[in-house]
């Protein structure tokens, strides 16, 4: 195995990042703020999914939907409480508020749930994949051979599903078209009669739902703990900025660049440097931004 296998690993990692990065970048594009508390939204979604799937217990696909709805509700509530009242103050106070909110949420979660990691029930997660053929594919004689597991396919499938739905919403619905208009010029959008507050609320809900989905997927892959989302926030932020802050399509591209960079750096760096592969991936981010400060697709998408 080699290049092909690591590209697949990178695509899987990129899929985890992409789902969350879309939500993160939508908030930036429409609300005009960097929400550092977004990692905690993932954690909230992961815990809701765990509660729904474990305590109630609902089948995992239903628990995922519950987590998405819960994430959306949590997101809009937190926005109403903390961000909407200071929306007029500009990006810096909003940024600082989000950092503070993240700390409050993280410690509140720790207070109620403890620090110990929890795990999705193995049988439940097996149920999720029982109708998917277990693809112990490979090694296939292609670029050195590779294997794929059904769980990896589900994660990539979820990401693709999100992309299709997002694209449909942005290009085929009034709300989506209004979002794009607001992202380009909020004042002009308001003059044209768009209810900008409604669009903001819609973005908060959508971003929360994506955080819920991403949190559950991360929880299944790793564990559910107070740091589930926080440990991912730098990768999410990097993907969004790399793609061109405010551009959902760019965030997708940025997420896959980060995911593949992480996989390849682990695979091909000297052994003594593999423990800092994340830093190498972010070095790529810096290099790309030096060459193209607007990110991969920021400006282009807005002109589309």
């Amino acid at each position, binding site marked *: 195995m080699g290049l092909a296998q690591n590209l697949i690993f990178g695509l899987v*990692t990129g899929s985890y990042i992409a789902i969350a990065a879309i939500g993160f970048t939508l908030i930036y594009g429409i609300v005009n703020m960097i929400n550092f508390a977004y990692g905690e939204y993932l954690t909230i979604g992961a815990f809701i999914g765990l509660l729904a799937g474990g305590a109630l217990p609902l089948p995992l696909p239903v628990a995922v939907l519950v987590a998405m709805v819960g994430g959306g509700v949590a997101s809009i509530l937190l926005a109403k409480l903390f961000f909407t009242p200071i929306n007029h103050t500009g990006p810096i106070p909003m940024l600082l508020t989000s950092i503070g909110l993240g700390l409050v949420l993280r410690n509140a979660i720790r207070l109620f749930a403890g620090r110990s990691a929890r795990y999705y029930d*193995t049988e439940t997660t097996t149920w999720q994949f029982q109708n998917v053929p277990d693809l112990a594919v490979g090694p296939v004689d292609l670029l050195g051979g590779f294997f794929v597991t059904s769980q990896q396919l589900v994660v990539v499938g979820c990401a693709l599903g999100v992309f299709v739905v997002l694209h449909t919403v942005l290009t085929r619905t009034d709300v989506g078209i209004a979002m794009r208009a607001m992202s380009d010029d909020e004042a002009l959008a308001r003059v044209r009669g768009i209810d900008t507050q409604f669009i903001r609320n819609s973005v908060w809900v959508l971003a929360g739902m994506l955080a819920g989905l991403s949190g559950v997927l991360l929880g299944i*892959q*790793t564990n559910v703990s107070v740091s589930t989302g926080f440990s991912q926030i730098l990768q999410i932020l990097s993907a969004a900025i790399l793609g061109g802050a405010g551009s959902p399509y760019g965030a997708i591209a940025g997420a896959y660049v980060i995911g593949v960079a992480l996989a390849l750096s682990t695979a091909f760096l000297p052994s003594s440097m593999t423990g800092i592969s*994340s830093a190498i991936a972010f070095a790529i981010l810096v290099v790309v931004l030096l060459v193209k400060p607007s990110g991969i697709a920021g400006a282009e998408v807005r002109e589309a």
Partner: protein
Amino acid sequence: MVGNSDRVVDRRTFLKISGAGSIAATAGCLGLGGGGGGGAITVGQPAAQTGQWDFLQPGVSKATDVAIQRINDAGGPLGRELDLERSDTSVNPQQARTVVTQLTENEDAVALLGLFSSELEPLYEFLQEQETPVVTPWPGSNFLDTRGGDHGTPEDVSDDEWIWRTVISDTVHTAGAALRALEDGHDTIGIINGTTSGARSWVNGFRSAYEANGGTVAEQVEVAQGESNYQSALDRLFQAEFSAFAVSLPLEDAITLMSDWSDGGYGRQPVLSDPLSQNELATQVGSDLNGAWAASPGESGPNYGTFESAYNSAEGDADINAWTPPAWDATMVTALAIERAGEATPEAIEQNLGPVSRGPGTEVASFAEGKEALDNGDEIKYMGAATPVTFTQFGNVVGSVVINEVQNGAFTQVETIPAEDLREFVPEGEY
């Protein structure tokens, strides 16, 4: 090595100059706590109530609490009650520094019964300045192999390094793991480890003993903690030729990594670091983990039974883990040091930890026995639960290693490697 004689003004001198020492002493005489008076004696316990090792703390807390209860039931050291102040460090060095300061300055703790490797290493100089004995059940780090203890001169504290541990070093039990791997015919091995000081310490000890005995490390891959998956790292590791691979990571990351290993169908023999001897790992990874094993500090103390019966008869359902008996030993040996010293001050405790543990003297299994012997004018030798607690000059102990293997989804003790077989890895004067 840091001595205490070359500082111009240390903390205690400053306190005396500022008058705070007099106030503290007065408070003690009035029965307001502190070590020098006639009230309760306070010992502190920096604890991992949160953080990556929090799952191990309940057993350690219970062992400490039960030991304190037994000590007080026997009349307490110097006929005074022994109080415990426990405070969470999250296994975070900065928080640990604050906790240590709070326990020694505000709570007047005369000894500390905690601190992990990852806290002790960065705080080592700071702890020397505190001049309060740290008797800890946690740290395996080989950093402490030649640091700590009283240098074999209990009466002279000027060369003391104030840190003692009642658990065997990584050097010892990783040697046990290396020996077992080689005995099983694994003469070439791969290693995957995290970047924490604990994870690296385990690997350094294991690798050193493994290679010293003829083994070859085919590949070593370091990974960061908190990743969403470790597939690329595993793919890289398993491109090398070896029959077994060693894993040293915090539990949560190890569960992610070993689940990825299981999903990838990589196979081969896993050798786990001692903190991974947890049924949670076996439960989450599933049947592929059957046959994996870990070498852990053993229960080779001559009085393990005394500890176990006391522990099991007390309330609480915390499981016994490898650090639970050492916590019992740390509490007992500290209380006996106070009793022998005749006074409850940090310096007096420091001067008596060696004498009550090294012998010669009447061998005692508990504080009650020790108090009785000391009252009779005899010297004592505490014989512990985890090890015989014979502190070396660097404040270390030697004991056996047990092999815990995953069988039918749970860790089961399958073998004990006697301490004598591991002595060659800890040469006299270097441990």
